[in-house]
């Protein structure tokens, strides 16, 4: 007599150790197998876009810190670039270099977190995570030197950056650029050819390039499928056209490729920082302008390659001191488009790992 079985529906989240915050996933399991998965978002909704309508253009910088709170610098960059495009504001050369340096530092920090938490979700007992956090600490301390804050930096302003880097920032950065490649080697030595990591991630959660493009996926998840698309090269902004770097891509589009692309990107970021440090010249870091920016009537969209993908801001100005409307194209949210396709057919353990490999931050998903 066959034993009667029935699928079980479980709410993974909003309180769950591996949902990167308050993400909720309604999953139907047949035993351990995922039959259906439905993401439910909105638990961290703070109305950032609406709040922006009540603040002036400089104040909004602080709101952008809280979107993707592990890479506040790239959020700032995307936002201030939109305001600069809207208000035709010039940016001094030195500020551009400082922006690129801090954005790339933050990319490394964000990818370290992504890698660390991926390993945590694979079940390593926090050791790789703590190793990653240890390196991230150096970056956060440098941010503290730049602007006094570690996470919610608010370092960039329309027309430049808050302030020039202090004297002791540069030796610290040199030291970081020198030591970081060996830290990445150490991390790779622990993870990249680890038998269990390979068994757990290789050929798991594959998405093809066609699917990824159809799902508007950007960032490392897109590049892991083999699509060589990076806004730093595709639409060179700031000083990305003056530095030499590669866009690493994956070959299969599985969880392992997503991890590998991030590690390779960290190496490229170190390369970018190194060149920026060589090229940067003394000069002003902020265009003198009125305290309150009043861009002309109109709208503008600008974007940058955040660690998660294309982070874009669309701002409509009515000529006043605050935007008439602001929209955020949040890569974390849009990268979840294909979640169901990636999860169905895999097991619970894979579900957690695939979800972790997309690397979302709930502050950005729910805004």
């Amino acid at each position, binding site marked *: 007599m066959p034993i009667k079985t029935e699928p079980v529906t479980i709410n993974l989240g909003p309180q769950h150790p591996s949902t990167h915050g308050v993400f909720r996933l309604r999953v139907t399991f047949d035993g351990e197998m995922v039959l259906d998965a439905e993401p439910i978002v909105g638990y961290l909704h703070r109305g950032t876009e609406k709040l922006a309508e009540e603040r002036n253009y400089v104040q909004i910088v602080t709101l952008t810190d809280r979107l993707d709170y592990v890479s506040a610098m790239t959020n700032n960059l995307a936002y201030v670039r939109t305001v600069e495009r809207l208000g035709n504001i*010039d940016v001094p050369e030195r500020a551009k270099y400082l922006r690129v340096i801090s954005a790339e530092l933050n990319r490394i920090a964000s990818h370290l977190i992504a890698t660390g938490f991926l390993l945590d979700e694979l079940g390593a007992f926090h050791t790789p995570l*703590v190793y990653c956090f240890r390196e991230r600490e150096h970056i956060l301390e440098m941010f503290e030197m730049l602007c006094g804050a570690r996470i919610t930096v608010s370092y960039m302003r329309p027309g430049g950056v808050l302030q020039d880097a202090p004297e002791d920032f540069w030796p610290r950065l040199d030291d970081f650029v020198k030591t970081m490649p060996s830290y990445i080697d150490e991390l790779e030595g622990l993870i990249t050819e680890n038998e*269990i990591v390979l068994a757990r991630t290789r050929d798991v959660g594959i998405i093809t390039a066609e699917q990824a493009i159809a799902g508007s996926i950007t960032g490392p998840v897109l590049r892991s499928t*083999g699509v060589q698309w990076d806004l730093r090269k595709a639409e060179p902004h700031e000083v990305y056209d003056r530095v030499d770097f590669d866009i690493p891509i994956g070959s299969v589009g599985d969880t392992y490729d997503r991890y590998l692309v991030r590690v390779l990107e960290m190496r490229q970021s170190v390369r970018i920082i190194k060149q920026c440090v060589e090229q940067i010249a003394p000069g002003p870091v902020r265009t003198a302008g009125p305290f309150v920016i009043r861009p002309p009537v109109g709208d503008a969209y600008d974007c940058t390659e955040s660690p998660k993908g294309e982070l874009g801001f669309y701002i409509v100005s009515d000529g006043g001191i605050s935007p008439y409307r602001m929209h955020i194209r949040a890569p974390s949210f849009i990268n979840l488009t294909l979640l169901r396709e990636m999860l169905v057919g895999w097991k619970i353990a894979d579900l957690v790992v695939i979800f972790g490999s997309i690397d979302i931050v709930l502050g950005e998903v729910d805004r």
Partner: protein
Amino acid sequence: MEATVLKAGFDFTGIYGFFDDLLPESLDWLAYVIAAVILGAVLLNAIIISTALYTWFERRVLGRFQSRMGPNRWGPFGLFQPLADLIKLMTKEDTIPEGADRPVFTLAPIVFLVPALLVFSVLPFHSSSFIGKLNVGLIFIIAITSVNTLGVFMAGWASRNKYAMLGAMRGVAMLISYEVPMGLAVVGIALGAGTLSLSGVVLAQNIPFILVMPLGFIVFITAASAEMSRTPFDIIEADSELGAGYNTEYSGIKFALLQLNEFMAPLIVAALVTTLFLSGWRGWGPVPGPIWFVIKSFVIVLLLLWVRATWPRLRVDQIMGFAWKGLFPLAIINIFAMAVEFQVLRDDTTGALTTGDLWIMAAANWIITIVSLAVIANVLGQRKLRRPEPVPSQLANMFADRPAPESATQLSGEVD
């Protein structure tokens, strides 16, 4: 051989004899009871306190592995941390979820704990174990440790929680699977020692069995670390997947008992490995036997901790596959090799093995071990990291010719 055996005398017969002499003839039963109570109290306290200290040790060592400090606030080097944890857990509200199967839910922690304590009662820390020489110690241990499976299932089922249920189901499947290679590895021991008594096994180890049957050691320690369900085999709890697995709904003192059992598991495994493969209490020089036992167990505990701190978790199907496709054949090869060698080498009249025979077996078994491990690793292991060369997709090409985008800097204008 007898010279290395310590006459400690602190076991059941020793205490019973002492009180038997002291008390009048009519109170024999009282001597029996007193001996049992004393032994029980000593055993329980020794084990629970050493487990408490071990939790401190594990957290400190894990802290070192993870380049952080570990608990160091409460007492010298944070040694009182287990006490603080205990007080915290005892004063917490002991909740039982609505809809839970209350008797089973309450019984599960006890079902967990008692077998673990019973294992310690038969382990020979010196020339005999606490309750004296048990002539079927090997079978007793294999039998008593499998009760754990029942505890996992009871806890998971009675909680009426889907996560707990999933953890329990995984646990039952995994624990039962890994009992097979563990049991088979013990068969090799029985063959080599010619006895089922744990003291006998230790006395037979003129060479530690880790040298005589390395394959058995590898199978046993792997299966045993799966039995204690720690990384890479911690699918029962799987904190990143199931929250806490079977103990999701437990709190207060019940949770403390579950944790006590969980932290006792490495100690049990280390003590078992020491007894079965590292020649137990036997050592050299004036150092007493129990000290040797502790030192050897300590090395094994550190090894297990190292594995725990380093490796990620396997998926449930991979774990089952590893048990049946990897460890099971290895255990069979081990038994086969041991049986053949035993048949060839043993003395025809007494059926015993000399130390020289053991060395010959060791030489043969090391070759067998290396060859069979290489074969199994090649069959089951991951292929070498060979990825197809990444080919940029033609679907989106950012290097294609197209009008240069307007950059913000080109639009230099007045700042209003």
